[in-house]
Every structure is written in C-alpha cells, then in structure tokens.
C-alpha cells in the first residue's frame, strides 16, 4: 500500500483537476484513472461569483482525498499564507507546497521551498514539496520533517518524461523511507511506468491526461501503466548488460561444434 504520512492508499496515481475540456470529462477522467487523491488550487473569487462552489461540489461527488496546492506562489510568505487558507477552506493539513522561481521553467525556488516547508511543518502541516531532482534539496526537506518528497521529471506541462534518470535513482537509493512521487513533466504512460519501475511510490500528473485527445481513455492508460510499473518494481527488474546473452540454450544446438 502507498503511505502518505499516516494514511494508506491503493492507487499510486495522483491526478490534477485542471485543463479538462469540461467538468464532466474531468470527473470521468479521475474515475477512469482510479485515483484516490486529486490536487486542487485556491484562487480569488470574483464578487457575486459561485465558481468555487460549483467546482467544489464536482470534487465532493468524486469522494476522493484532496491535496491543495500553492501553485503560482512566488515567495515564502505567499506560500505559507496560501497553505493556511487551504487548511481553512478544505479542512486538511495536507499541502502540495510550490514556491516558483521562474516563469519559463516553473522551476521550484528550492531555497524558499525549504524555508516554507520548515515553517509549515512546525505549524502542524503535512507537506508534499514540489522540488527538483537535487539530492541536497531533498535531504534538507527531509531534515525539515517532510515524509513525502516530489521531484519533477521535467518542467510542468512539458511532457518530456524523466530527463534526469540517474538523479531520480539516486534519490530513491538515498531516501528509502521517504515516499517519493514524480510530480510534473510526465507526458506518456510509459514515463509513468518508468517512474514506478525506478521504485518511486507514485506519480502526480495533470496535463498528460487533460490535454489528450481523449482524456478519459488516457486516464485509463495511465492507470494500467502505473500498475505495470509498480508490479515490475516489486517483481525485481534484471540489470542491463553491455553485450548479448542468448536466451535459447546453447547446449545441444544442431550442427554446433566448438571453434578450434
């Protein structure tokens, strides 16, 4: 079972709620993904608007665990206040912590991230930090009290898949007791399977499903890929080799004789 802080889940696919062609397709995609955890955001409500109410009732119908994010926050102060607003609004101490450094890459501000995580953990939050694949940052987040670490595979929405496989492998090896989630950059089910094969506990994605030609079908494909990747990891993958090694037995090959 997947464990985040003290809660257990059977699905290892976390999914976002944004960018779908319609609210109905969002709901159907989340169901097809089999996801038990969905990410949501907080935004300013316009006067007279009931946008938030309408969206929230769609999410409640799904009966899933909500992981609010601090997307768009560019400072520690904004991220900490947004996390506290999320706790008030959603009644959860979970927060997907994002502190963004750069508009073009949506790269995490890892310095601000560690600072914000420390503040929030002291205040009782259970933090899911969106970070780079840098080991030193991950170690600082763990030191601050994070039990979950969420490195990117590639920039958000880029669909490039795992661009720094060695670094992600290193994180897995060095943080065996931390729940690791590949968050951002996943474009295809094969990318998700690869993350699970590396021993990652889960993946979090949004755009790859929401922007597919058929989001509901793609959500189903990701579900299968995540299950396949996890099963493969548990089954124990063989190591790669530099040269061929015959699978068919050599002994008894017709016409075979030793080269003299």
């Amino acid at each position, binding site marked *: 079972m997947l464990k985040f802080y003290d809660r257990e889940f059977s699905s290892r696919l976390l999914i*976002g*709620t*944004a*960018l*779908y062609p319609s609210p109905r397709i*969002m709901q159907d995609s989340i169901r097809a993904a089999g996801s038990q955890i969905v*990410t*949501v*955001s*907080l*935004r*300013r*409500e*316009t*006067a*007279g*608007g*009931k*946008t*938030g*109410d309408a*969206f*929230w009732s769609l*999410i409640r119908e799904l009966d899933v665990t909500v992981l*609010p*994010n601090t*997307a768009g926050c560019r400072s520690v*102060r904004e991220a900490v*206040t*947004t996390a*506290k*607003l*999320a*706790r*008030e*609004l*959603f009644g959860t101490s979970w927060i997907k912590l994002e502190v963004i450094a750069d508009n073009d890459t949506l790269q995490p501000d890892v310095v601000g991230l560690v600072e914000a995580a420390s503040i929030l953990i002291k205040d009782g939050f259970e933090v899911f930090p969106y970070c780079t694949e840098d080991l030193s940052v991950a170690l600082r987040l763990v030191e601050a009290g994070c039990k979950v670490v969420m490195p990117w595979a590639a920039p*958000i929405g880029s669909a490039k898949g795992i661009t720094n496989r060695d670094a992600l492998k290193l994180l897995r090896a060095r943080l065996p007791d931390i729940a690791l989630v590949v968050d951002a950059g996943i474009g295809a089910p094969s990318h998700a399977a690869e993350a699970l094969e590396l021993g990652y506990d889960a993946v979090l*994605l*949004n*755009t790859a499903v929401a922007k597919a030609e058929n989001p509901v079908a793609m959500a189903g494909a990701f579900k299968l890929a995540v299950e396949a990747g996890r099963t493969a990891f548990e089954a124990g993958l063989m190591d790669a080799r530099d040269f061929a090694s015959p699978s068919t037995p050599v002994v008894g090959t017709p016409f075979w004789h030793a080269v003299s």
Partner: protein
Amino acid sequence: MQVTVNGEHREIASGTVDALLAELDYEGTHFAIAVNFDVLPKSRWAQTPLKAGDEIEIITPRQGG
C-alpha cells in the same frame, strides 16, 4: 474607507468581513479569507473589525495540478 480586496483598491462602508461580503454581493459559500496575510477563520468574520488600508483576500477552491 479605502481597502484592497483581491488586489483592487475599493471604497467600502462595511466594518467587518461578514458585512463586506454582503456589501460586495458575494453569494457563494466556500470562501477562505486572509486579512493582511493572516487567515481569518470563519468563526471570526462577524466580529473582526476592518480598518483603512487592510489587504483582504477572498479565496475559493479552483482547478489545480
């Protein structure tokens, strides 16, 4: 008095958050509110006084990744 609501300067008559929501015709029910970067729990909306220059954020659930 002059305050900032969701990043916009406004002249308001209300003295509390509760009154402000009514004054600005907010009709929804799922809000969280921060005043000057401090979250104001719903239980205190009716009694917490607003003052000139306050920065008020009215926040609601939205799609996110």
